[in-house]
């Protein structure tokens, strides 16, 4: 490996990931965090011009070349997905494909600054007997500096995971947080003709169906560790709450008289809020992951539903009809104090508390249908994110707060879209037959 990749080993540690995927890291400590590259709280974000030439096939085999172009494209797609980067066309590069020099002292940074690239990613790939070794580096071309470099070892089918890992490293070094690459999205789809629960990767890849009961399944919600999903199912002809540990296939069912709906997990805990109507009135309760009631959280007659927790779990936003129309309220759990958040419009539902804690996205009904709005938790800074594009609903934030996933029927049928936190770059997340709705974005699932 040393001869292959030269010497960058100022410091190194390794991580054992699932399967064979290994990662060695040699970030230069002197550089530390580079958080000033991307300010995710800046609405007028400038996309950073970035160059990703095809990676270098070290043994120059055909199979290696295939991986080299596939991996470079995959990385470019993932980075573009974040909304922070503008990929430069490889046709404009001043170097030959597959033959770039991949380490700092060989790179002529002027070749890159000359075409406007501010960031450069290089890679080297060795594919031997199904074992895949990949080394990836991110450079600041103007400073001529390595920002982060990683070496990954695994099987050929670990490729996507390696690229995901490195995308996460890039975002960490540029923004100071881990990004979205280890997160997933759960949603409802009628692919089979019935509403069933699905999951997919953060970028819409790899959709997996997780319910198979041919009834109506609704409102899936991730636990913050990404191990559990709670949802409502009519598998037994009434709306019951299913709390499932996805990988272990264990769980509980809350099947009281009336409604058992609208789950929302408390951040960092295996507890969840849900609306139950066994008392004759829809009220919000706090439950354990085994479905036992810990306590009742609302005490007003009429509808109380759709909790979203503050990131510290100390407050909850929820929908109540206590003032005669559905509006969003915030309750501080310790003091029991409740205040109304939304005053504009007569139908505001589906609050989603941002991971930064300062804003709440929700769905507002007005003349042109349903639209996503965002409001500060102090009630200031109300902004509408969608306009004149059918019904737009069910907002949910990415774990880093940079993106919002939602559903929209702007193309006739309900599908899942994403936009950045300020409403720009609205695009469809995935294409499946039937209708897709009620997306919920998980937290990052594995510690980096």
């Amino acid at each position, binding site marked *: 490996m040393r001869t292959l990749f030269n010497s960058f080993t100022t410091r190194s540690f390794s991580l054992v990931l699932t399967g064979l995927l290994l990662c060695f890291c040699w970030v230069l400590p002197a550089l530390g965090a580079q958080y000033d590259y991307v300010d995710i709280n800046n609405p007028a974000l400038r996309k950073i011009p970035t160059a990703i030439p095809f990676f270098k096939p070290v043994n120059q085999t055909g199979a290696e070349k295939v991986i080299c172009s596939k991996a470079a494209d995959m990385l470019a797609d993932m980075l573009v997905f974040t909304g922070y980067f503008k990929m430069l066309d490889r046709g404009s590069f001043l170097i030959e494909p597959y033959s770039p020099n991949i380490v700092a002292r060989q790179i002529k940074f002027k070749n890159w600054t000359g075409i406007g690239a501010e960031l450069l990613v290089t890679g080297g790939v060795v594919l031997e007997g199904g074992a895949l070794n990949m080394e990836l580096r991110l450079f600041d071309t103007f400073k001529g500096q390595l920002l982060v470099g990683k070496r990954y070892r695994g099987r050929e089918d670990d490729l996507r995971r390696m690229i995901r890992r490195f995308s996460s490293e890039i975002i960490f070094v540029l923004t100071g947080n881990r990004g979205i690459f280890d997160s997933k999205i759960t949603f409802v789809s009628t692919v089979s003709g019935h509403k069933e629960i699905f999951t997919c990767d953060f970028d819409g890849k790899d959709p997996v169906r997780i319910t198979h009961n041919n009834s109506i399944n609704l409102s899936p919600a991730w636990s913050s560790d990404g191990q559990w999903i709670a949802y409502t199912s009519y598998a037994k002809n009434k709306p019951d709450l299913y709390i499932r540990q996805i990988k272990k296939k264990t769980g509980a069912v809350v099947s009281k008289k009336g409604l058992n709906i609208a789950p929302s997990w408390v951040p960092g805990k295996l507890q969840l809020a849900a609306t139950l109507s066994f008392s004759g009135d829809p009220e919000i309760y706090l439950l354990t992951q085994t479905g036992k009631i810990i306590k009742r959280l609302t005490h007003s007659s009429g509808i109380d539903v759709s909790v979203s927790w503050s990131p510290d779990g100390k407050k909850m936003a929820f929908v109540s009809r206590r003032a005669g129309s559905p509006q969003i309220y915030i309750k501080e759990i310790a003091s029991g104090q409740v205040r109304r958040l939304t005053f504009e419009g007569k139908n505001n539902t*589906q609050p989603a508390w941002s991971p930064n804690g300062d804003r709440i996205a929700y769905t507002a009904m007005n003349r042109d249908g349903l639209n996503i709005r965002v409001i500060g938790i102090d009630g200031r800074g109300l902004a509408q994110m969608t306009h004149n594009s059918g019904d737009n*609903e069910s907002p949910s934030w990415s774990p880093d707060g940079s993106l919002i996933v939602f559903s929209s029927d702007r193309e006739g049928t309900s599908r899942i879209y994403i936009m950045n936190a300020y409403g720009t770059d609205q695009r469809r997340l995935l294409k499946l037959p039937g209708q897709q709705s009620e997306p919920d974005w998980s937290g990052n699932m594995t510690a980096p």
Partner: protein
Amino acid sequence: MRKSVWIAMVLMLVVPGLLLTTSCAKKATSKNGPTVNSDDAARKAAEKARLAELERQKQLEAQRLEEERLKAEQMKKEARDEFENIYVHFSYDSSVLDDMAQDVLRSKAEWLRNNPESRALIEGHCDERGTVAYNLALGDRRAESAKRFLISLGIDASRLSTVSYGEERPIATGTGEAVWAKNRRAQFVIQ
């Protein structure tokens, strides 16, 4: 042509002649028997006629009963269909029962009183304009307010159950108030 006319004429004369001959022959035989026999036969014939009339009456009665039964059954079926197919409707974002909704529920109560062995499931439904969870809660409120009104009319609570389908089971598709109004409903299912 002429030949066939002749044949027709012969047949016209000969056939009735033959018939007369037979009946005469019968008469002749009966005249030879005892007079008691003749009375007996008359009585028998009368009795037979009486029985036939009785049977006819009986059949008519049975037919009338059957018709009545069918009519009753039909009415019962109609009442049952009406119970299941006439819905209680609501205004937008409301579970309040207006006069029309109360009238519909009074006829539901009447049916339930006439069919004391039956139980009913009340489904609450919404139009598709709101959002999923809120509409589930609204559907629950609609079914509950229908149930409470029936209880206030004297129907035993144990005969009534509710389920909300929110906006998941519309009966009309499309947009516009006419469609939405149809979908905002409480619907009864006999169990």
